[in-house]
């Protein structure tokens, strides 16, 4: 949704927000320097990453299972990686620069080549 920028005499008093969910208009993924890459092969579906992610950027499928990362909103803070309890970790951070031009599948192979 494109946001409509209001003039100073049109905004709601006290910067109150009446329209819920407008944080969707703010793509925090644009801040990212590093990104988490997910390995479904070792993931134990504990959902810690989903609980801890401050930007609700962990994708959940129709069965309530961890299904990857929403890179439009993932700001790359690394909290999910910190929290991931599986051994080896099912989430790892890599530099955005290293991810450039590669598909998620390619990245997965690269990052988790030793964690089967």
């Amino acid at each position, binding site marked *: 949704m494109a946001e409509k*920028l*209001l*003039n*100073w*005499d049109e*905004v*709601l*008093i*006290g*910067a*109150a*927000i*009446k329209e*819920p969910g407008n944080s969707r208009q*703010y793509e925090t993924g644009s801040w990212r320097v590093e990104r988490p890459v997910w390995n479904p092969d070792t993931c134990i579906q504990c959902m810690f990453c989903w609980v801890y992610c401050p930007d609700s950027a962990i994708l959940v499928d129709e069965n309530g299972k961890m299904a990857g990362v929403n890179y439009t909103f993932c700001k790359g803070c690394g909290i999910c990686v910190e929290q991931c309890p599986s051994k080896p970790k099912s989430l790892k951070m890599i530099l955005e620069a290293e991810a450039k031009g590669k598909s998620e599948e390619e990245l997965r192979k690269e990052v988790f080549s030793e964690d089967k």
Partner: protein
Amino acid sequence: MGKKVALTGNEAAAHAIRQINPDVIAAFPITPSTPIPQAVAQFIADGEMDTELVTVESEHSAMSACIGAAAAGGRVMTATSANGYALMWEMLYIASGMRLPIVMAVVARALSAPLNIHGDHSDIMGGRDTGWIQIISENSQEAYDNLIQAVKIAENKDVMTPALVAQDGFNTSHTIEIWELEDDNKVKEFIGEYTPLFPLLNTDDPVTHGAWAPPNWYFEHKINQLKGLLDSKEVVEKVGKEFGDTFGRYYGLYEDYKLDDAEYVIVAAGSVCGTTKDVVDNLRENGIKAGLLKIRLFRPFPYRELAEALQSAKAIAVLDRVSPAGAQGGPLFTEIRSALYDTQTRAPVINYTYGLGGRDTQPRHINSVFETLKKIVETGKVEKQFDCLNLRGEWR
């Protein structure tokens, strides 16, 4: 007409709060304002108020709790002084930015260091740009009257801005004066019911308060906030008149005391105005055209009206109860002088710092100011644009 009582300025504020009976008060004690929440706690214990009194661990928490309660939709008040007010700092901006009409009694006091618990205006002047309406009282009667009016001003739909009502630490807060306490019901009727704009507790109409505004929104919100603060000026005048119609004591943006034809004028705020009025009376008896411009509304600063009121003056002295802290003069001085720049008068304007940390300012000191003004007019020369009143050792 109200009932004449002999009580302190703090008690005057406490009685105003008792009659206003806000939903929530969150406060932390600090001299010289401690007797206000203390008296309020007693009123609550005695069943004379049903306010929720939240005792907190600091003034930062006090203002935070006030903000939460006000966002929830309550009518909220608090009281503080000096370092307590300073500790509220960041929350003061949040209260005004969120447009929560919290009303606060400030008993103005010096800021440390050196440690001093006595009266001056360091606290309120330091907070003058926090976006709050600031009303300064001369005495207990005004401290009482102004608090009642402040509720109505702050909660006005076009304003929705927090307001503080200041009185001078000890000079007013701990001095017993005779003043009129109005009837409880008449006060309640005067302030009326409060209808919050976006109460957080109204789950039928959900709202987000305190969200962040990125660079493409923040500016617009701050200017919207500014408009609310500026629009309060008109409301201050309106409410001052309504208050007069109801209780017999009229209030404007400022008070002019023998100012119409005055040639030597002092501009001041707070309890020193009482002393100045006595001196003006004496000088007038001797045929000297002295006058006083008493600041009532300091924020928003009614610069046009104040400048207009000073046009007859041949020389003006602005008294600041705070150090200029490196500016050309005290805050009152710089704003008055700036306001005059757009008008016809080119009367010399000088500045004094007085009364820091509770230093007494007596009639002889005010007299010396008028004498200096006379000398300036006679010689056409300003020897010192800035000086200190009742300071040991000459300021150079």
